[in-house]
């Protein structure tokens, strides 16, 4: 667990500046497509927004558990002695790449999103059937589908989850990553325009990217 649970949370938190670019608009759409009587009651609205995010984070956790289980077997086969070092180095490189991407210095990193396009093409029609959302169950189910939306940040986190040592650790890693994304994505549902403006600020993106890079390199130095 070299880039540990705190790393997962920070990756979600800083990476959320990337999230609001795409997921923020989606959250905005999902919020404003709710019936007016739901939107006009803050408690009910918060409930629906929570269901969307709960579903999304559950999907991340499930994917993390699968990656963790798969990674544990893979690690044993690659090299029981050096496997962890290889994964630590790979995870650091990925986290640095995410940082560079956030800072705007590595836009080509977004190509990683293509990996998830085939799954999304199958899931997206199911999601369409759930819209417009009128019940908490629909919101939860939509969130579950939303969790599989192609996203470079999620894939990077999943790759790091591969090296967490097992399904439980992998799942926990992605759960914390998902929780890290909550503040920005939830806030965007309510303050879409202001948050999007903030997230597109190159200086803010650069600071978030540099913090993530600093965290990844610190983790590498401590754990090497």
């Amino acid at each position, binding site marked *: 667990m070299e880039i540990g649970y705190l790393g997962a949370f920070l990756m979600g938190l800083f990476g959320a500046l990337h999230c609001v670019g*795409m997921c923020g*608009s989606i959250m905005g759409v999902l919020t404003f497509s709710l019936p007016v009587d739901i939107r006009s009651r803050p408690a009910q609205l918060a409930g629906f927004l929570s269901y969307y995010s709960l579903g999304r984070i559950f999907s991340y956790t499930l994917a993390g558990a699968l990656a963790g289980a798969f990674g544990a077997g893979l690690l044993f086969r690659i090299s029981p002695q050096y496997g962890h070092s290889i994964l630590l180095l790979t995870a650091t490189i990925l986290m640095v790449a995410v940082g560079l991407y956030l800072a705007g210095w590595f836009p080509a990193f977004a190509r990683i*999103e293509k990996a998830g396009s085939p799954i*999304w093409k199958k899931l997206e029609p199911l999601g369409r059937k759930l819209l417009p959302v009128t019940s908490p169950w629909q919101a939860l189910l939509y969130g579950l589908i939303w969790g599989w939306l192609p996203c470079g940040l999620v894939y990077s986190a999943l790759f790091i989850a591969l090296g967490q040592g097992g399904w439980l650790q992998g799942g926990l890693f992605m759960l914390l990553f998902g929780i890290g994304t909550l503040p920005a994505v939830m806030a965007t549902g309510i303050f*879409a325009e202001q948050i*999007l403006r903030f997230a597109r600020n190159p200086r803010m993106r650069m600071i978030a990217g540099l913090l993530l890079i600093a965290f990844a390199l610190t983790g590498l130095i401590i754990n090497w």
Partner: protein
Amino acid sequence: MNKSSNYELLGKSPEFEALLRSLDIAAVTDVTLILTGESGTGKELLAHHVHTRSRRNGAPFVAINCAALPEGLAESELFGHVKGAFTGAVTDNPGRISQAEGGTLFLDEIGEMSLDIQAKLLRFLESGEFQPVGSLKQRHADVRLLAATNADLRKKVEDGSFREDLYYRLNIIPFHVPALRERTGDVELLIPEITKRLSETYSLPVPSYSKAAMDCLKRYAWPGNIRELRNLCERMLILFNGREITDGNLPREIRHQQTKRWTFALPDSGIRLDELEQELLQQALEKSQGNQSKAARILGLSRYAFMYRLKKYQLQ
């Protein structure tokens, strides 16, 4: 859709695909959307894409360019008029909103709409009701509104040319359409694809681009975005069909982009170099708040050279 409709939605860059995915989700809902982005990025086609992916796709998609609406006729064009409402109103006109009934109304360049019409549009957005010119009756329309702008609406609100309440009503969910230069890898994908389609239209053999020419095109900033790219492909096809296009064949502004470090262009009437030099010295001093070493650095001069020029022109 216009003849270039199929071109703008081409693109495999992650930035563009992410936007399409988000718009596909938004399409299913009935939420008012605003597309922001530079001119020529394909906002109208994306709005049409949202309409075709929505549940309203069986009803009309009506697009209006607010900048092209004549001042005196804008209200009647949008909300309609009744016979005799004004000189020349010889028949009833249902207006664009009524024409879009059940479907989607797309207001392009919404920032150019007059304040008077903005107030009426806001009322329609809030209640779904409007009043045709010359009519005493309120009408109701079930229309989804999509808008687009390349202007900074917030600035327009600040300078009083755009209503703040309409701004907040429209800007609920802004979608930013990336400029072509922000779309990783799309230039090299779009050039051959657009050229191929144009060659079919013109029945001309496809030209090829040399590596140096393609590298030059990839570096270019494309201020006119897809529209500019399409026009270039068309021009190159007509001039060089069936042949290879080298970097030397490209338009001057594309060829010289790297050597051109600033946008200053010598006017035909000429300039007074000494006056320009004095102006630059003054501006550097203003920017550095009087710090002469800093001002010298801004102009790429040594402090000594800078002081010499200040003395020469008797500037402080």
